[in-house]
């Protein structure tokens, strides 16, 4: 059984082969892997590869967006099951919305404009920083929901984009 997963913003195909108390085996993008489970405690996991090298890592619980974070070897990797609205970019957001409370500085698109996933649609200011709000998928701008200068709360949709079938 194989599924599409987003790992660090890139799509991969993941196949589950075997999972039990001692082993985790699968296939990613056609590459097979098998690890021995040395230790498991909550999110902590120690896996040994075929050379016997042990790898210590932590997997966080699934968050509201269905993402988990794998922390190991100095890296923090986000992994989630891919959905139709997810693009190849690092974002898995499904709306062009304010990620936190702040002020809309500028709207960069007009109604009717075609956008591609990752295109900047608005600029926001929050916590003394400027941030770009991007289109989560390819589509057409259906409505501008807020004007520049407006203070918005977290989750407020800034630009309504209708997804176009790819």
């Amino acid at each position, binding site marked *: 059984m194989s599924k599409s*997963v987003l790992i660090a913003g890139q799509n991969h195909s993941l196949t589950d082969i075997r999972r039990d108390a001692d082993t985790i085996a*699968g296939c990613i993008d056609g590459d097979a892997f098998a690890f021995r489970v040395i230790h498991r405690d*909550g999110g902590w996991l120690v896996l040994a590869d075929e050379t016997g090298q042990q790898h210590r890592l932590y997997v966080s*619980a699934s968050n509201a967006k269905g993402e988990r974070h794998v*922390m190991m070897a100095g*890296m923090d990797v986000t992994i989630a099951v891919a959905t139709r609205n997810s693009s190849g970019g690092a974002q898995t957001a499904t709306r062009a919305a304010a990620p936190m409370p702040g002020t809309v500085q500028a709207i960069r698109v007009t109604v009717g404009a075609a956008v591609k996933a990752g295109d900047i649609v608005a600029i926001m200011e929050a916590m003394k920083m400027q941030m770009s709000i991007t289109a989560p998928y390819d589509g057409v701008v259906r409505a501008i929901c807020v004007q520049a200068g407006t203070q918005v709360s977290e989750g407020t949709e800034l630009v309504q984009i209708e997804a176009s079938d790819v």
Partner: protein
Amino acid sequence: MRAIRSILIANRGEIALRIIATAREMGIRTVALYSTHDAALPHRRMADQSVHLAGDTLAETYLNMDAIIATAKQSGVDAIHPGYGFLSENAAFARKVADAGMIFIGPSAEVIAQMGDKITAREAAMKAGIPLIPGYNGEHQDAKTLAAEAKKIGFPVIVKASAGGGGKGMRVVTEAAAFDESLAQAKAEAKNAFGDDRVFVEKYITQPRHIEVQVFSDAHGNHLHCFERECSIQRRHQKIIEESPSPALSPDLRQRICETAVDIARAIGYLGAGTVEFIADTDGSFYFLEMNTRLQVEHPVTEMVTGLDLVRMQIEVAEGKLLAIKQSDIVQHGHAIECRICAEDPDRQFMPATGMIEMVGKPTLRHVRLENGYEAGNEITTHYDPMLAKLIVWGKTREVAAKKLSESLQEVVFAGIKTNRAYVQRILHHPEFLKGETYTSFVVIHKDALEAPALSGEMLKLVAAAYLGAASTASSEANTKMTQSIWDTPALTRFRNVS
């Protein structure tokens, strides 16, 4: 002399815990404050008493001078420790505390005001003979005067807009011939951005390092230093990594910078812990930037190389005691490096991160200090500073310390929330960092190298395996969900044994 037997901590999180730790060692009673947002934070329960500050905003809570002083009086404390940030450099607060008959752990309100104002601070530095960045900030704004001033300063210079910052109206000029054109551009940009085309001209430091000196003064005219820290690894003027000793200073330069810092503490009649910040250039020149009249975030770095307890020293000098040590007693031993773990997403322009902490993790190597204000179950919001914790390590050499910090950072996972940990790791592994080539422009110059790399084939397999492994645990957990106790939820485990 006035004994301090009880302290109210006008702060929160890791610094409140830090102060409580030393107070416990000294047998001093502590009173902690907490806002509604902070009710579940560990600093609240680690004190002898905790008092709720009602309100949603900082103004209603941790910045509420009157409420804090009223609480302190009601609790009958001898002293208030302001920590860092918040009211620590608020002269009005220091004055109010003294007027209310309590000891403010820090310098006098007058000194706070003096060094808190950029102009009077620079005047104090100049008077003490401390070098300032050569510059011209005068009324004459004509091209001829400014060009002459630039020549006097010596190239390279930087032209900066007087009305604002953020890089607007700024031009670096490397030679006299380019000055007029650059000046015109800077003025036009400044006019456009701020409606004001006035500029000032300063010497441009090409490879600046942020070197700061920890100073300490008692009430009997004794002023000493606890050596320096280098804090050049910064992003948008926010420090990320701090260390001591600075890899850039020769013993002679170190002595000169440290003695210069003591000179200023002496000149202003300082009391308590303070930090004098300098900008140092590669040619051995250094210039006064500002003085922070409080304990700094990165003070543990100094503690780990000198063996001193700076909070204890703060309390003792606030009691009126003589500093217990002489300058010759203070020695730098080995190397300490600190990194700040912040709730921010380095892959999304360092946007502040929110969420519930699932697991903090524990460092297991020796000589590692985790100064942490949160625990599993705590909710991180955007109400407060995104810094979650500080991780400080000591090693015999800088190389050992850097490696140890990297290893320890892997153990302190802060699962459940996005942090800058992986970004810090990339800095710690960068060859220029390891060589000590640390300048305040580091993260900008090495921006590309500091981006998250693509996953190697091996890493990808591990991540995939971890995901499958977690998914299998989750599904078996889901099956046993109904039989699992509600007390196993991270936020509630500490109530498990409460009857």
